[in-house]
């Protein structure tokens, strides 16, 4: 079995580097187990949001259909969906043992993710000005818990991918770090999976009424 300290060339690089060592296999399984737990976490937050949607103390509080903007949600969705594809490109170059290109695509992924986060911060500050805050209503608490938790995941994912890029900048690719990059890209796709349900269940269904 290949070992983490082995040096590789593109000829000797294994076809599935993310599962080529025992540690990598354990990481792979452990991470999917974690994603199963994350599914439960977001399921509970979605359930809470659906139960508390538009539950406000009086009519002076804005409701979902007064708040959400289609243009902003659409822009955020396109940014995050595209960043999912760019991280697929990064893993494509990882499998081809092309470290520089992998780093370049990861950087594009990070930039798109940061733009998404910027839009979300703008959106939240706009809502706060309209009187929709975490403590203003049950609806506000449920909304910021769900969407904020997702935004927190995006922020964590950005820091994670950036740390991997910086820490391994001089090391190049080997079986020590290839599984780390792979698992981080799985996390990034999972964030996108959650966003697909957020833009559908929270924003689009909120606009429909």
């Amino acid at each position, binding site marked *: *079995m290949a070992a983490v300290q082995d040096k590789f060339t*593109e*000829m*000797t690089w*294994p*076809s*599935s*580097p993310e*599962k*080529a060592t025992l540690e990598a296999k354990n990481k*792979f*399984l452990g991470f*999917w*187990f974690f*994603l*199963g*737990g*994350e*599914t*439960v976490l*977001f*399921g*509970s937050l*979605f*359930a*809470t949001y*659906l*139960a*508390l949607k538009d*539950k406000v103390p009086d009519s002076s509080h804005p409701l979902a259909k007064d708040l959400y903007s*289609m243009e902003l949600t*659409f822009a955020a*969705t*396109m940014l995050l*969906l595209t960043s*999912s*594809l760019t991280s*697929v*490109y990064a893993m*494509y170059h990882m*499998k*081809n043992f092309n470290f520089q290109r992998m780093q370049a695509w990861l950087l594009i992924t990070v930039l798109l993710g940061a733009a998404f986060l910027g839009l979300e911060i703008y959106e939240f500050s706009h809502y706060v000005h309209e009187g929709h805050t975490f403590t203003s209503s*049950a609806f506000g608490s449920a909304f910021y818990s769900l969407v904020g938790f997702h935004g927190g995941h995006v922020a964590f994912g950005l820091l994670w991918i950036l740390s991997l890029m910086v820490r391994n900048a001089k090391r190049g690719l080997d079986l020590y770090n290839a599984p780390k990059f792979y698992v981080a890209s*799985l996390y990034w*796709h*999972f964030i*996108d*999976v959650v966003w*697909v*349900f957020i*833009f*559908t*269940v929270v924003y*689009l*269904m909120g*606009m*429909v*009424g």
Partner: protein
Amino acid sequence: MENLRPNSANPKADLIYRRKKNAEEMRYQVVSFALMIFLTLIAFAAVHFDGFSHWFVAPFIMLLAVVQVIFQLYYFMHMSHKGHETPQLFLFSGLAVALITVLTFVTITWI
């Protein structure tokens, strides 16, 4: 398992083969991305166009979201590849708990 198989006696041919296979897979990934964007556009358009009833639009865009997530899981996250039986068990177990939680909160809670 595939990744434990030593590289073939002809490493050059092996490399060319794997490059080709990776490039082919990348093409499928781009196709699934295009489909995901397409599904997203339909969902936004269905909401933007005022003519449809709420009772049609809500389940319709939910269906589009589920299809899009299947693409994301099975292509982008490689769940269609072999060796993903345990990840499927983990993910679908989590999903079962999540769906029961959502079902409970939208049916038998009242505030």
